[in-house]
Structure formats: C-alpha cells, structure tokens
C-alpha cells in the first residue's frame, strides 16, 4: 500500500461507501401514531351496511361461542379454553377478510376465527377437549392446525404463501399471533423471510395487553408492536382491535396488497383479553378490576351495536334475531359436546408414519392384546 497523493482535507467531498444504496423511504412503513378507528368517526357512514350487519352477527355469535366454551370447561366437557372474549372483532374480521382459497394460520387462542371461517364448532374444539390434536382436515377449509408453540405457525404461513406464489396461485395467508408471541425468534425469522420473499402473507398481532400474566410493558419497549414492521421493510399498521370495521378494513387493505404482489404487512390490533388467560388461570393475581371495567366500555360488540343502532341499521328486533341464532348455535354446541367422543386407542399408531414401522407394529399388537384382555375381563365381570 502506498500513500496516495491527496487533496487537502477540505477539498474532497465525503463519498458514501461504494455499495451503499440510498435507503428505501421508511416513512410509508411506519404506522400512524394512534390506532386506526372507524366506528364513532365519520368514516363509519361509508361502510357497507351489509358487511356491518354480517360483522355484527358474527361478533354476537362469536361471543356466545366463547361463553359457551368456557361454560363447557366448568361442566368438565372441555379440558381447557383460552377465551377470546373481548377480542371477537379481530377473530371475526380475520376470518371474513379472506377468500375461500386463502389460508388462515390461527394460534391456540383463535378457535373462533376458525369457526367464523366455517369450521365446525365442535371440530374446532377437539384440541381443547383432548380427544384429537387437530379435529379437522386443514386442507378442507384451509385452516392450519391451531398452534400451541407460540409464533411457530408464522414461518409456516410464510412458506405456504411463498409456495402458492411460486405455483402461480392467487392465495394469501393470514397468520395470527399474540403480543407475547412477537418476542419469539420465530416471529422475527418469519417476518424477515416474508419480506425478503415478498410473500403474500398478512401478520395479525392481537395485542391483548398480556401474555398470561406478563403485561406489554415487560414484553417490549417499542413504540408499538406495529413499529417492528420497519425493521423488516414491510408496512406496519396499528388498528383499534375492538373496532371490527376498522380491523376488517386494515386487514382488507393488507390482504389486497399481498394479493397484488405488494408483499407482507404487519397489523397490530390493540385489544384486550376480558377473561383470564384460560379457565385455569386466575387473572386477579396480575390485574385489577378497574382496567377490565374500562375495557368493558370499549367492548367490540358494544361499539358496533352503538354505531348500527345509532344509524338505524339495527333495532331491538334485529338484535333479538341475531341473539337467537347465536343461542341456537350454542345449544347445538352444548348438545354435541355432551356426547363422549368415541376414540380408538389403536389410532395412536396409525399416523406416526405413512408406513408403520416394525416397532410400532409390535407396540400396537401389545396394546391390542391389553385392550382385549381388559375387554374380556370386564365382559367376565359383567357375566358374573
């Protein structure tokens, strides 16, 4: 290396490092400073009444589903239920915003989204009843299995959306995750892959304030969870998660962008988990009544009902009809869940591999012998 002849220091302009390209403008990626709202604003007047009423019906049905499922846990008919009471606007909007060919990737809390998308209300609950891990064929309604390990479903959504795009199919994937789930490495890796691949996927974070007992402030120091989008180069959107119309609009725009090749979006819906984490949890250990009470005034059904009633789209009678429909659904669910599921223990060995391995055949044979012996014995007892 030789010392080069140089002009005086002041004479040369600083040049950027050679490969440095001017930055993409981060401004369009940044979320607005406050959650987007429609209900109670002038914008509500422009919303499609039919959609509003559909949303309302699903919200009421969804709430009823939640309360019924929680009741079933008390009756011992459901092992555990993570209720989405208070979050129905997100659940329902996520389901309704998708086309039939699209895919939904729910977390363990999102049975309701699956049901709103058309899944049988009982099939959606097998995981939580304990008879089957996944009570449905994911391909039938294009709903991935309800996912328990947090955030792990997000890369699946990216891979599926990517695969669909490669095949030339017009398919969007919508993946749901909680505020707590955003801290997991899989959240990061999924969003990064999605942005690099421009995969047609929408990430919906339901920020319901808590990860079990841990409040958002112990989860992140970010201005908002939507701000995380900038770091991946995708738009971040912040929406009032209890305003079903707003959530539907924001998700709708994100789905449309994904569909036209514009890549992924991160949507943070600010909402609140009105019930405990699950029926097994005791929420009084980590939060006060006043907080819950304040959110009760911001109930998603209340917000929409107010708006629709205020604008004459809804009256006591129509409300009654909607509630009756929800009651019928609940009654059906109750009845169906009262039947004990019929299970074949031999199923344990059927789907481990496509072809049963020798050792599984041996183990299956052993269990069959045991069951037969049990059967003979109880038969013998009966005969006695």
């Amino acid at each position, binding site marked *: 290396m030789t010392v080069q002849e140089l002009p005086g220091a002041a004479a040369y302009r600083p040049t950027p490092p050679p490969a440095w390209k001017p930055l993409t403008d981060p401004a369009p990626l940044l979320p607005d400073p406050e959650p987007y709202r429609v209900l109670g604003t002038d914008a509500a007047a422009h919303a499609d009444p039919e959609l509003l009423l559909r949303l309302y019906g699903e919200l009421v049905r969804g709430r009823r589903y939640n309360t019924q499922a929680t009741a079933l846990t008390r009756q011992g008919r459901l092992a555990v239920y993570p209720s989405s009471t208070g979050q129905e606007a997100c659940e329902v909007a996520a389901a309704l915003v998708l086309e039939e060919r699209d895919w939904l990737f729910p977390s363990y809390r999102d049975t309701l989204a699956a049901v709103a998308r058309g899944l049988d209300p009982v099939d959606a609950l097998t995981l939580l009843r304990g008879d089957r891990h996944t009570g449905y064929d994911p391909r039938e309604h294009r709903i991935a299995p309800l996912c328990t390990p947090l955030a792990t479903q997000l890369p699946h959504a990216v891979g599926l959306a990517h695969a669909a795009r490669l095949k030339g199919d017009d398919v969007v994937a919508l993946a749901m995750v909680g505020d707590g789930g955003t801290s997991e490495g899989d959240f990061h890796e999924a969003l990064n892959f999605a942005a690099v691949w421009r995969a047609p996927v929408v990430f919906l974070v339901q920020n319901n304030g808590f990860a079990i007992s841990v409040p958002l402030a112990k989860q992140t120091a970010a201005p908002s969870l939507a701000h995380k989008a900038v770091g991946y180069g995708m738009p971040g959107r912040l929406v009032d998660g209890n305003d079903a119309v707003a959530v539907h609009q924001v998700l709708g725009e994100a789905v449309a962008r994904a569909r036209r090749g514009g890549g992924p979006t991160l949507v943070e819906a600010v909402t609140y988990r009105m019930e405990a984490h699950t029926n097994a949890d005791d929420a009084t250990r980590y939060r006060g009544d006043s907080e819950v009470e304040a959110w009760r005034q911001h109930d998603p059904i209340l917000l929409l009902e107010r708006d629709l009633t205020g604008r004459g789209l809804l009256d006591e009678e129509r409300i009654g009809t909607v509630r009756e429909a929800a009651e019928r659904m609940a009654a059906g669910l109750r009845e169906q869940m009262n039947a004990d599921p019929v299970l074949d223990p031999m199923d344990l060995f059927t789907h481990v591999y496509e072809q049963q391995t020798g050792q*599984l055949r041996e183990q299956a044979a052993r269990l069959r012998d045991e069951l037969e012996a049990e059967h003979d014995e109880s038969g013998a007892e009966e005969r006695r």
Partner: protein
Amino acid sequence: MTTAAATAGERAGAVRPATMAQALGRALRDAMAEDPTVHVLGEDVGTLGGVFRVTDGLAKEFGDDRCTDTPLAEAGILGAAVGMAMYGLRPVVEMQFDAFAYPAFEQLVSHAAKMRNRTRGAMPLPITVRVPYGGGIGGVEHHSDSSEAYYMATPGLHVVMPATVEDAYGLLRQSIASDDPVVFLEPKRLYWSKAAWSAEAPAPVEPIGRAVVRRPGRSATLITYGPSLPVCMEAAEAAISEGWDLEVVDLRSLVPFDDETVAASVRRTGRAVVVHESSGFGGPGGEIAARVTERCFHHLEAPVLRVAGFDIPYPPPMQERHHLPGVDRVLDAVARLQWEAES
C-alpha cells in the same frame, strides 16, 4: 427427652404434609435467601408465581430483579442466563412446559453445556434449568413431552429428576449450588403429590449422582426415576401377591449415572426392568439396559426389559392412559423375565 433435644425439635419445625410444588418453591426461596447471586427468571414466574405456582411469593420477597418475568422467548431467557452466569450470578431458569424448552435448544446444547469445557474451566456456568415435564395431567399437545433423552445425550449437562418431596427440595438445592448447568426435570403429575415434610428443617438427601433403593427386594430390580417411581412402587406392592419381591431403584439423576448402585442391585436380583414414561426407542432405557448388561451379563437370568411410552408423539389427553406405562405393563414385563429358568 432432654430440653436441648426438645429445642432442636422445635427449631427443626413441624413435619407437615407438603406437596412437591411447595418443596420446590421452598428450595428456591431458601437458596435465594442464602445466596444473593441466585436469580430466578422465566415466563410468568414473578407476579403470577409461575403457571404451577412453584415461584409463588419469590418476587414479593426478593423483588422483581431477583425473580423476573421475562419477555416470551426461551432462547433469550437461557441466553441471558448464560450471560448472567458469566458475570457471576447463579440463574435459575423456568421453562413453562417441556416442549417450550425446545426453542432454547441451541443455547442449551451449544453454550450452556459447553462453556466450561470450551474455556478449560475458566468459565463454569452455574445455571439450573427447571423444566416441568412429562404427561399424565391431561395437558393439550406440547404440554406433556418427556425430553430427558435429548439432555442426557448432551455432554456437559447434568440431568436431575426428583420423584419425592424430599428430593424435590434437596436435589433442587444441590442443583442450584452446583457450578455446572443442570437440567432439572420436575414431573408435572407429581407436583401435587404429598408427603410429610419439614420446611424448616428439610431432611438431607443423597447427593446428585447417587441412586437410591426405594424398596429392597430379591426377585428382580425395577430401575426408574421421576414420574414412574410411584408406578414402580405400586407395581412392587402388587407383585407380592404374584410371589415376586421387587427391588425399586430410583436413579434421581441420569447424569451423573450411578452405575454402582444399579449394577449392585441387578447382580443381587439377576433380573431387571427399566421403567420410564419417555418413548422407548432412543430413550434412556436403552442406555440403562445396555450399561446394566455390560456390567452384569453373567448375573442376568433374562435380558433387561424396558417398559416405556410408545414410540409415538405424545397422544391427546383422552388417550394418554394407553400411552403411559402403568402398573400392569410393569408387571407384564416382570412376568416376561424368564422365570421358567428358575425352577
């Protein structure tokens, strides 16, 4: 009884029924009280006291900095614990459920297990990773895994599994005091098991690495640990009526492994069955059976048999009873120990 003895008795405190969860909580509390470098961290361990309430009261007594609700990220939790241990703290990490320790696998295997060795002893990592593990509590998918096979195959980790209330306290204290990383597997379905126990003067227990004969016997040896110990004890009782006097060995730790106690028992009885809940194939039972056979070959009247979970993903709760090794399967295995040869 002398007055001195009475006073000692009083100081020792009353012996009351305690659950394993309570004994574990007490162990954490006492360790934190004695050693200011002991820090507890994990998901929901603070305000909530953990989903199994094992850490209940710790944040209140020692403050948020000593018992910390972390963000929800297991690799981050264990990785941070590695850094804390590098600085001289003694972190105790709680993983919420067995399968939720998997995101931390790389930190556990590539760092926690290897740091002492990598630095030739300069930087030991006194980390305890508490993992509520195993099934039998009706948990949904991913809440009932038995993953001790992964940990025991990882040199550098200790793998400890209490099966009694006394051991829960004693082994956890020892694990926290250890200068090495310990994976501490707490059998979920024993959390609420009770025993008479004194929180004020907990009985000392054998050191980690020592197996204990929980029931002496002469016909055959049941080798087990953790959630399967009660199953084996029950099986041993039931076996009496069949004419078998079974010895039950509680391993208490897979690493270190107590070859002496196990081999001595099998040499005496000439027959052995390994019982665990983890899947059989590639599970601890293979290693144990192989070790025992290497050491006791000419004393064995029959091959060492194994009773284990099936080689399947953990089933839905309504099916788990078919999967879990119970008393009948243990007795069935004992029956297959070629007793004909005897007569």
